[in-house]
């Protein structure tokens, strides 16, 4: 469903992402982990078409992003970590706007818009301007709009930022159901509990390179240790020292 082949992104002499290859299958919820500055957001921005890869290939639902961007982007839903929106629109107008730029007549999608606003609990705030929304409300609106055009692949950067526990639980359920209906989610997160609880497979990126890939048990055997994802993650990314010193302080 989502295929990255030898993906590389260079900023001058600095290689933010190096030769990254992976495949997210249909129905799979894939977690993309890594320490700060490892290349997660760069990778996600390349998949969303916001950054151009220096080399390599991205395929979304069978469409090459470089060769057929319209089809590829049409099959993709994107939820960024920071929800910058059109502040002067109301939630309902924003949803209609998104429907329009994906080529749908908003009238046809009215039912679906209502359903999604209901789902993210913004129905009562649908007529209010986005500028009066809290961060969490904006994040929920972005999530609703990302599902509007019924994408096949959802790419999410830090889904839990700004969400309250209720919102976080809702999002986890929505992602799971989305995958269960044969679609895929590629999610980058620092919340390791979420990754452990939700993801079918996990990829760990370190200094631009994929250092581990597999199910939770695959990662444990690679790290040659038992324990939770946090411990495995710290072992694989060389962060034990940080954890110990943090605990000590």
């Amino acid at each position: 469903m989502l295929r990255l082949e030898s993906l590389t992104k260079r900023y001058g002499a600095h290689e933010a992402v190096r030769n990254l290859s992976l495949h997210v299958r249909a129905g799979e919820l894939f977690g993309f982990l890594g320490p700060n500055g490892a290349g997660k957001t760069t990778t996600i921005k390349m998949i969303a078409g916001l950054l151009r890869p220096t080399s390599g290939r991205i395929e979304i639902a069978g469409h090459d992003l470089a060769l057929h961007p319209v089809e590829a982007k049409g099959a993709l839903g994107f939820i960024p970590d920071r929800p910058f929106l059109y502040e002067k629109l109301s939630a309902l107008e924003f949803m209609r706007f998104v429907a329009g730029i994906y080529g749908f007549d908003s009238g046809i999608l009215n039912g679906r818009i209502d359903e999604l606003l209901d789902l993210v609990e913004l129905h009562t705030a649908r007529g209010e301007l986005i500028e009066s929304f809290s961060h969490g409300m904006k994040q929920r609106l972005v999530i609703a709009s990302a599902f509007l055009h019924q994408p096949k692949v959802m790419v999410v950067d830090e889904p839990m930022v700004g969400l309250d526990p209720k919102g976080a639980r809702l999002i986890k359920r929505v992602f799971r159901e989305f995958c269960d209906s044969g679609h895929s989610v590629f999610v980058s997160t620092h919340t390791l509990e979420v990754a452990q609880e939700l993801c079918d497979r996990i990829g760990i990126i370190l200094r631009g390179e994929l250092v581990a890939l597999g199910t939770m048990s695959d990662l444990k055997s690679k790290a040659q240790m038992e324990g939770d994802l946090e411990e495995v993650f710290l072992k694989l990314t060389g962060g034990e020292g940080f954890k110990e010193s943090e605990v000590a302080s």
Partner: protein
Amino acid sequence: MNLEFTPASIGALLDPYLRGIRNRRRHAERGDRLRALLFASVAFLFALFVFAGFYRVLLYIGQFDEFTAPLTHRMLDTVSTFVLTVLLASTVVTALATQYLSDDLSLLVSSPVPLPALYGARLVLTLLQSSWMVVLFSVPVYAAFAVTAASPLGFLLAVALAFPPLVLIATCIGSMVTAALMSAFPARRVREMLLLLSALFVVLLVFLIRMQQPEKLLNPRSIYDVTEFFATFSAPSSPFLPSAWTTSVLVAARNGESLPAMPLALLWSTGAALVVLGCWMARALYGVGYSRAQESRPARLSSLPLVDRFLETVTRPFEPRFRSLLLKDLRTFLRDTTQWSQLLLLVALVVVYLYNFSVLPSNFTFATFFLQNMFSFLNLGLAGFVLAAVAVRFVFTSVSSEGRAFWILRSSPLTMEKLLWSKFWAALPPLLLLSQVLTIASNHFLGATTFMTVLSSVTILFVTFGIVGLGVGMGAAFPKFKFENVTQIAGSSGGLLYMIAASSFVAAVMFLEAVPAYLILSADYRGMPLTSRAVAASVFSLGAVVVLNLLTVVLPMRWGRSKLEAMEI
């Protein structure tokens, strides 16, 4: 004075800004340096132009002994009053951003930084941000006064002593007004109110100056009014205004007299007193004001349902993508008060423009067939320039106004080509209407021939396409997605380049049309038919105009599209 209010503590708080400027300079790329160089060159040319203008006027009035002293006094007073007024207006708006809405304030306010030090640092920042343009404008003005003064160095010394406290006083008063407003109203309301008020202030200023009807000076019959006009120059302005204190110091220096101590003492002591007063006021009000700045505006209904229904209905026939973008742009525009203030200025500009033409012809004792038509032809250039000035604000900004929400469009299946063309078609109709109104009405007032009116109307029709294409294309090539209000986009180096490109384009069109217009008008005047050579020259020139306009639409649009596609966000 509070001990916490020390230069060292203020310097420490300003350090991140200074380092930021230094780092930006260090990491500037070639394009940034080129832009800076271009901006500096244009600023230098402007300064030179201002200097030359003032220098000529001062030389001219120096010839009339009885008027020289009162006129110079009045001119210096006008400059000081202008500086004080503009600085007051700009400080009130700037202080809102630097002292209440800036992102780094949450860190500073939550840390144990003494309030007086914070106030002092922000006052310096407000002063620098609100006054740099006025100070730059003042340099060539005072330089012209200095070189025509009895003792140039003495005059410059007087400026160095009397001008800085004037700037300080304006900044302190402006900051205090903002502090008072912020303690009473929510930040967004204050911001909207101030932006509207400052626009109204400028509109009023434009009308007041225009309604003085300076063109009457050209008419010998109004000489009685002129004498009256000059008589007003000797009237002193209010002695309580700081601008009057600055003026009296400068006037004394220009006349080669010793500098008066009283106004200088008043300027510096008032400045110092206002800094202390502002500090006390900050102690009392800053906490309340900053807290209010964090409060969101209460949720309200999205808009007037009637307007909304109207917009929905009129955009219904369009294709979904275009309709979506158009509706979004219209709604954003109508709900953004910074846009209203710009619209107010635009309306004032158009009214003054047409008023000028309605007034001038009656004074044309020298109006002839050729002159009338020449004015009509030159008016084409003026209308083109006005159009470019409007377009830099409303068309050039159209791509950048997507702001940080641009990711929504980039990650969607909407191509950049479609986006740019939708911006083009959305901007074209209002600008076509404006250009036609400007051209046809001004030609009517000028009493131009039907031929000139039709030629102007058709030419401006083409020129509007070019100006809009150039605006959308260059706006996409020089996007500025991070801005506080849209006026910053038009004032960017890209906006400046656009103005240069659009003015050159209008000049090129006029150059191409000058020959056929002359040939056709000559034949008309003599009552002779056009020669075949004249017909060929006219067809060639007009064909070239059409080609130039097409290129001015297509090439910048392509350039903008490729730049936008290659851009990484």
